[in-house]
């Protein structure tokens, strides 16, 4: 398979192109996704290739986008709906929690809802209010919905293809800080990464480091600062359903863990991870699991945002603390 050096925006764009080409029921919809190519240019070029019946500029209405996409999904299409920023996804929670996630359940399989919602995600890009939020908890807590967040162009493509092909609704979050942060080799052809599986990025003995999205890079940087320690870095990739297997195996080996996330601490996914470790590997723990997270406050505007977001120094500090416990 031939490879190209792509950033995350390009990788996602490529995945959309290919899935739309392969499957005529796939369509893209949302605010400014057509003529404009998306405010982050993620859907660029699609409308020229597939026309305005498959790349649809919608009115400005998030519940409307998701609700009509549900109707489409139920009747045989596979909509990939964009919510322009994660901070406006709150308006979709009702349609997702009350409907998309329950259609299979409520109809006992008579109907199902193969819908993907895409949204940029998280902080670190010096943006306006509501444009820097990490909102995964709201969606992870909804049974029947899946939640995915890639940390690299390669994963973004493979996970998005899997999400589109998944017969159930998936919320696909794109860490906007990584959109153009780096390029890597991405196969030109199609490939999938199974949903619900985390990935060990490094093998280690001393401590398990768990992250997703943009925080994976932060963790990698932090590891440069604690080279004397052997750290096992896990990128969850799918937040729901949670692959607790990969976490538990690792913690059983290392006995120590640090979890890093942008989400506010209270009931961020870190809490659930600790709960699962407690349930399945408590006796292996040699130190309290530590969370390095966003604080329980609204994400500050950019002048203070750097104090909000976990950075490599904070993570390295936590690693040392837990290792030394």
């Amino acid at each position, binding site marked *: 398979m031939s490879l190209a050096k792509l950033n995350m925006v390009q990788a996602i764009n490529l995945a959309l192109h290919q899935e739309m080409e392969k499957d005529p029921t796939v369509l893209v919809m949302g605010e400014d996704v057509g003529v404009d190519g998306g405010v982050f240019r993620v859907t660029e070029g699609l409308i020229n290739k597939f026309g305005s019946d498959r790349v649809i500029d919608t*009115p400005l209405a998030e*519940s409307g986008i998701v609700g*009509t996409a549900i109707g489409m999904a*139920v009747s045989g299409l596979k909509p990939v709906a964009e919510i322009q920023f994660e901070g406006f996804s709150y308006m979709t929670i009702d349609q997702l929690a009350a*409907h998309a996630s329950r259609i299979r359940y409520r*109809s006992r399989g*008579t*109907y199902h809802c193969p819908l993907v919602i895409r949204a940029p995600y998280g902080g670190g890009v010096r943006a306006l209010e509501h444009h820097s939020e990490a909102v995964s908890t709201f969606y992870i807590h909804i049974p029947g919905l899946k939640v995915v967040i890639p940390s690299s162009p390669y994963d973004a493509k493979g996970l998005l293809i899997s999400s589109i092909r998944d017969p159930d609704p998936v919320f696909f979050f794109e860490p906007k800080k990584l959109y153009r942060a780096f390029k890597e080799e991405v196969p030109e052809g199609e490939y999938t990464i199974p949903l619900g599986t985390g990935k060990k990025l490094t093998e280690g003995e001393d401590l398990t480091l768990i992250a997703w999205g943009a925080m994976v890079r932060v963790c990698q940087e932090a590891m440069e600062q604690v080279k004397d320690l052997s750290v096992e870095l896990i990128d969850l990739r799918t937040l729901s359903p949670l692959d*607790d297997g990969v976490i538990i195996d690792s913690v059983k080996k290392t006995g120590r863990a640090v979890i890093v996330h942008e989400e506010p601490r209270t009931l961020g996914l870190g809490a659930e991870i600790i709960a699962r470790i407690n349930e399945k590997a408590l006796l292996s723990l040699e130190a309290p699991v530590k969370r390095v997270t966003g604080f329980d406050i609204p994400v500050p505007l950019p002048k203070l945002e750097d104090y909000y977001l976990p950075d490599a120094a904070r993570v390295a500090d936590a690693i040392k603390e837990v290792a030394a416990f």
Partner: protein
Amino acid sequence: MPRQKIVDMSVDWLSILDPEGNVDKNLEPDLDKGTLEKFYRTMVLTRMFDDKALKLQRQGRMLTYGSSLGQEATAVGSAFAMKPDDWFFPAFREHGVQIARGIPLKLLYIYWMGSEDANLTLPQKNFTVAIPVSTQVLHAVGAAWAAKLQKQSTASIVYFGDGATSEGDFHEGMNFAGVFKTPTVFICQNNQYAISLPREKQTASKTLAQKALAYGFEGIQVDGNDVLAVYSETLAALEKARSGGGPTMIECVTYRMGAHTTSDDPTKYRKAAEVEEWRKKDPIKRLRMYLEKKGIWDQGREDTLIKEITGEIEKAVEEAESYKPPIENMFKYVYAEMPQHLKEQMDELQGFISKKKGE
């Protein structure tokens, strides 16, 4: 011209069959005897289904239930205007439509007795009941849109109440329908109340139908207790939708003769006299008078019909009550494939149940 009128809009009202069973000859739809009998039968069946449900509920054999008493013409008239291939999106009071669309009575009772398993064999193109008010409007628009994109000449039809018009999802759905000219028919069952809130307090607009004008398409008000008017107008709207003419909103002016649901006490918020006024406009009574005048109906046929329906209902209730949903269905239909954590949780529950049985 610095100050000038730039938009002019209007809304029509339609009725064909009056409360005494007199028909407007110019507007009378051309329906054969069999069809008219089917209308009548389904309206009576709906009322008797409903009546039985209320009785069962009072005996603790059903969940909270919202009766459609008095609204049978709206339900049945619109339902028989659909083709089987049109998508149907109900709120929670559309028993009459569901019956007319051929959903077995037994399934309806199973659902209202408290099991999603009713939908295991739900006939296609009939969507599940939407409990959150007006949320289904968007689904109907999406389904219609999908049909249009897939070049199918089918329409979708969605039901909601007067109260539902206040919700954001109603607005977003109507607007999408207008912009994309989706083949959607919006049936507003204006039964004058949203639980206790009277129609005049729900919105300050003179009619609900005129709301369609804000989205650039036609709204019309019909006598919702007149099955011929509802049928004719729905038929026209569906035909228009299927042939690319876009959406229509039909406000059916009717009345909720009963309580909002079995948990409600309407005497708290409305006068008996008002209910009595509406009783005179009963939709079934006026259809029967029309049929009698036409010589299609008489007391003998009525008695036979009642007997027949009573039997059907008894049988459906019996079957519904004997249905026991398997516990694993709780876990089985959350995702196409059961993820690990749900397997663990199901095992946990089943382990606990067998342990208890063992004790």
